[in-house]
């Protein structure tokens, strides 16, 4: 049999198992069917119930506008799958091509897609994490519990960590007129993702909305009362704050532990793969039958010097799922690379924040349009003289232009004035906390628009 015959037979009656039944898993399943896969499809997920959308869990669900069970993902088509829900996968055996479940069952496959995502990083002291009133937000049960606690009218909420999730939760608290303290180890909110200049704007926003924002502090202890209810938090500067709700928003942990011993390049940073979403093994070799998508995938991005990047962005999960699904049922010559420029959004304190590119891959940042003091502007990020990212505050409609600047390795700072000229157009150092891993110069540009025609071209010099 030729490999074309093999592929046809696989598309007709092969076995595909998708581990992870959330956004990436569901979209991949839909794409597989859309592209003509008629074999057996098994969905494995540790949560019970229909796949649901997570971004509203830290926004509309917490305001009480949308019920926690009201974010079920819309279905694009019937996927005719067998659903194994409520039991996590506990192992992957690539010698016999089986997924092991925690209850001992074994599920055989010809090809497998890993989309096990991320879970919330819990508070580091287990006994304190178990206090009544201490929450994380990742699943709909989490969001439902926190929503109930907020509705009960707490005297004060403490948010630990001022990344996007923590900031959004603080914003919801203020919207509900609940006193809130935000504790952030870094110098500003959002500083780890967007740098000091934008972080300063985010801090202004929080304070203008009445948030008790404390930066450069660490929460050392959560103290409960005799009934096991949270009542106070202690900081490393000796101060305390009384609160009956604490939300631990310290980011996520990638669900890769179940892959220990599988031989894949899986670890705390995710599972390394190529731009075709094929998993890499421990030796750095690409595997043929194991694919990765979504928050656990650690995929090289040619625009950013082929660095392996894992992203916890909604659009990234959808796009990787589509690429992985396509590549699972196509031969080498017809495979697509995942080459999209990352983008994400957040809404907090009445401001719509959107970003394109990788802001942490930058050495300078400049406001290119609008007014920082009005909290409506575009800021472009540059690395060694080329545009690598942009962030908008209430100015999202310009993002496509900046995506194009990134894809074409356009010079930084972007020349030429616009009608909505900011007061100060001088680039400043981007100033991220912690070590930066930056290397040299632009090497590639991305061309093409449809997934089937996206390609990387080596760039030896700028166009102009």
């Amino acid at each position, binding site marked *: 049999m030729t490999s074309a015959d093999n592929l046809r037979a696989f598309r007709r009656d092969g076995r595909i198992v998708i581990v992870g039944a959330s956004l990436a898993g569901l979209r991949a399943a839909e794409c597989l069917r859309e592209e003509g896969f008629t074999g057996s499809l098994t969905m494995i997920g540790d949560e019970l119930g229909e796949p649901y959308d997570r971004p509203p869990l830290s926004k509309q669900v917490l305001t009480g506008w949308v019920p926690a069970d009201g974010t079920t993902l819309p279905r694009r088509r019937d996927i005719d799958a067998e659903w194994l829900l409520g039991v996590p996968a506990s192992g992957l055996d690539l010698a016999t091509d089986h997924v092991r479940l925690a209850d001992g069952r074994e599920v055989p496959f010809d090809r497998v897609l890993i989309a096990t995502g991320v879970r919330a990083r819990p508070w580091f002291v287990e006994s304190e994490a178990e206090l009544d009133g201490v929450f994380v937000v990742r699943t709909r049960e989490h969001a439902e519990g926190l929503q109930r606690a907020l509705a009960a009218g707490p005297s004060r909420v403490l948010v630990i960590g001022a990344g996007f999730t923590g900031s959004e939760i603080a914003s919801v608290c203020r919207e509900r007129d609940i006193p809130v303290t935000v504790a952030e180890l870094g110098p500003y909110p959002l500083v780890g993702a967007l740098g000091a200049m934008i972080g300063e704007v985010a801090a202004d926003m929080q304070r203008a909305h009445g948030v008790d924002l404390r930066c450069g502090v660490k929460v050392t202890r959560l103290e409960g009362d005799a009934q096991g209810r949270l009542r106070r938090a202690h900081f490393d500067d000796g101060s305390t704050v009384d609160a009956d709700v604490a939300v631990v928003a310290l980011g996520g942990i990638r669900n890769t532990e179940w892959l220990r011993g599988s031989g894949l390049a899986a670890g705390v940073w995710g599972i390394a793969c190529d731009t075709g979403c094929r998993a890499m093994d421990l030796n750095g070799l690409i595997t043929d039958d194991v694919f990765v998508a979504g928050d656990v995938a650690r995929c090289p991005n040619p625009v950013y010097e082929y660095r392996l990047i894992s992203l916890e962005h909604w659009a990234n999960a959808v796009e990787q799922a589509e690429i992985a699904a396509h590549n699972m049922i196509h031969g080498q010559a017809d495979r697509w690379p995942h080459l999209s420029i990352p983008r994400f959004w957040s809404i907090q304190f009445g401001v719509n924040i959107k970003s394109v590119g990788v802001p942490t891959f930058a050495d300078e940042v400049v406001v*290119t*349009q*609008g*007014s920082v003091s*009005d909290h*409506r502007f*575009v800021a472009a990020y540059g690395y060694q003289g080329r545009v690598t990212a942009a962030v908008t505050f209430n*100015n999202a*409609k*310009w*993002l*496509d*232009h900046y995506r*194009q600047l990134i894809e074409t390795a356009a010079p930084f700072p972007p020349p*030429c*004035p*616009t*009608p*909505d000229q900011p007061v100060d157009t001088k680039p400043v150092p981007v100033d991220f906390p912690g070590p930066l891993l930056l290397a040299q110069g632009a090497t590639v540009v991305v061309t093409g*628009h449809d997934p089937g025609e996206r390609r990387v071209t080596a760039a030896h010099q700028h166009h102009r």
Partner: protein
Amino acid sequence: MTTTEAPDILRRILDYSSRPDPYPLYAELRRTPVARQEDGSYVISTYRELADILHNPHLSSDVRNLAHPMPSAEGAPVPAFINMDPPEHDRLRRMAMRHFGPPHTPGLVTGLEPTLADIVGGLIDDFADKDRIDIVDDLAYPFPVTVICHLLGVPREDEPRFRVWVNDIINSIGYDPKTDPKEKLDDGVRARQNLREYLGGLVEQRHGHPSDDLLSRLANDDGPDGRMTDEEIISTANLLLIAGHETTVNLITNGMLTLLRHPHVLRRLRDEPDLVVPLVEELLRYEPPVHIIPWRAAYSDVTVGDTVIPKGSQIMLMLASGSRDPNRFHDPDRFDPGRRDNQHLGFGSGVHLCFGGPLARREAHIALGQLARRLDGPRLVADPPPYRRSPVLRGPIHLQVERNGG
């Protein structure tokens, strides 16, 4: 991509004889995606280049940024936000949107649905006995006009007065000093003045008398951006009144014409009412109500593809051509109501994306849905039908339809 001069194709497109079918000329035009004209202006006609430039912050909608401003009938102390740049554009649009859509007024269009259905139902009842109807005069014109009057709070009985003004204004939009009589411009100037005075009178009455209509809410509501001045309210109302008229008329009429040319789709629509949603998107691509953005200005040097358009240049955007670009849409000249990935340019894109789009969509859904259901065996009397003059807001001036037994 090369920049060459293609003045002849554009002239033929703008010529009235091309109105029934400009699409083959658009295809010719697309051979030069960014075409420099003899007079130094530029014409953009391909999808990617249009989509790029609509998001380009170096493009201006403010006439003062043209190196050679063209004669205009505008003449208002404050232009409408469609002819402004950020940040003023954003401020005025935001203040108007507060009363029209999410996040502050999320349920407006949905809440209007019963009213829209009643208006369409009533208009169809009115011609239920006639064997021959004019889709334009009997439905596509009176429907959106009634809706926009209702929304703004403009008395419906004043419609004959402002219909004349609106017509003169529309005629003056495409004014070309080289070919058009000066009266066309003068009529436009006078009509704008009359309409402004009329709207000014309405705004005056609203002060201190808050009610639910848009004029009243603009005149009395104090949002985070403060209150619009009366001149700003008049310019905004003027824009919404004209845009609320002329575009939806064409969307519904072009829609009915397209359905009559594709009877199997019309039959399908009767059986599958939900088809109307993707169908209207396909109409916005295939026979859009707005074909051209007549001008934008290069605020600074603008790079499109490989062409650098110098600062101050006038740029014409051929939206309807972009939506038929075979490099973006498979089989673009086919009307396919089930088309996927249909990101047409029917409402433009970027910061000037059609303000009334959500309302126009709903109006078209309801009008075409009811027409499909209630018109028995409709036949076109003349194909092509007679067209309005404008190459910009393109659509039939009448659309005669005969019915069973007629």
